[in-house]
């Protein structure tokens, strides 16, 4: 697997925003029940450079994820770490037993400094729904409160899903 395959992409959410079916997608539609093997990196291969890292705790039925993306437009500011246009969100939610989907709070943080203990504030900026169709395929719906920006993205597992497959078959 080369680096380009690992560096993820997402579909054009802006283009999909008007046709998104945020409220029409039921949480309990058929899919693969969530398991711990779904932890890892997910993305849409059509657009490079953005995606999700997911973690799953099957005991508390908690999913925590980070959405690595960018600002809407270049900020043209200085940067010594990463890119000045980097933007990331985190999301946290709990799922029901045998459920293939989870509704999560989308959270933006402010105030942090690289590798320092400065306090960080967290603000809920929207909602996010993940539905797992299989160990390799999922859909992510998102809705931002501020500008009603919403969309739906097909996500694919970036790396091997062997653990997920094994757990799903057990």
């Amino acid at each position: 697997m080369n680096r380009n395959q690992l560096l993820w992409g997402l579909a054009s959410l802006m283009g999909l925003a008007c046709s998104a079916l945020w409220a029409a997608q039921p949480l309990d539609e058929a899919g693969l029940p969530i398991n711990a093997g779904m932890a890892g990196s997910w993305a849409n291969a059509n657009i490079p450079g953005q995606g999700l890292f997911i973690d799953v705790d099957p005991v508390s039925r908690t999913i925590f994820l980070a959405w690595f993306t960018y600002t809407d437009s270049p900020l043209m500011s200085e940067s010594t770490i990463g890119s000045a246009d980097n933007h990331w969100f985190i999301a946290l939610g709990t799922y029901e037993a045998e459920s293939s989907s989870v509704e999560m709070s989308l959270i933006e943080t402010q105030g942090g400094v690289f590798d320092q203990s400065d306090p960080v504030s967290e603000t809920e900026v929207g909602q996010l729904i993940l539905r797992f169709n299989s160990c390799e395929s999922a859909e992510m719906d998102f809705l931002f409160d501020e500008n009603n920006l919403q969309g739906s993205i097909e996500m694919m597992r970036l790396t091997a899903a062997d653990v997920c497959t094994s757990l799903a078959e057990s």
Partner: protein
Amino acid sequence: MFHDDGFLYVSDGSDATVLRYDALSGEFDREFVTSGGNGGLNNPHSLRFGPDGHLYVASRGSNSVKRYDGATGQYMDDFVAAGSGGPQGTGTIDNPAGLLFAELDSDSGQAINAGMSGAWTNLETLGQGMFLDVIPGDQRIFMGWFTYETETASAFNADNGNHRWMVAIGPYQGDTATLELLAVDGGTFNGPDPVVENPVGTATLQATSCTEATFTYALDAGPGGTMTLSRLLPDALCAELSGTTGAGDENE
């Protein structure tokens, strides 16, 4: 016995059970090993969690050491069966009362496995951290590091909270991964713009256990350091996988 899951485990000799209590308050939590599912436990004495994350109990009345699922308490097997240790009557296990797991290799850490995929953070710098994705087939790790710019928000445009993120990829062997850190530039939110990957430094990740690792980084721009990473969510698979070659049962 206090365990790092926040509970106190106590063997109950009369009922042949293992009871679980809150380690801080002492409040009863539940019957972890039940009398109806104890696999023949008889007069339990010493108990320990093993390197595979499961609970081992010395069963004095049955002259055996029984193993229970570390997450559910369900009986698994007789890890040391009655009669072990030699011909009957010549030194076989008899009235076992103590358990001790010797360090298998105190100089080495935890071999990296797919169960380490997930969120990790430095507890000293909450609000930033790493996600690991372990790729056993390639013996490689893919990592995302979500963090911030090095200066305070007033020095830069704060529209994005001075967010910064990097990715890293590299091979691992045993408990150690050697990673190349990459900044990814040129993207816009959900836009199809091509991106450019720029090497910005190197890092080493050494797993000391399924829930703790040491991360050492050196960025070409100057910053460098070492931090202790802790698993943000409880370990679900690493301990299980470290004792087997395949995927383990899910701890539900």
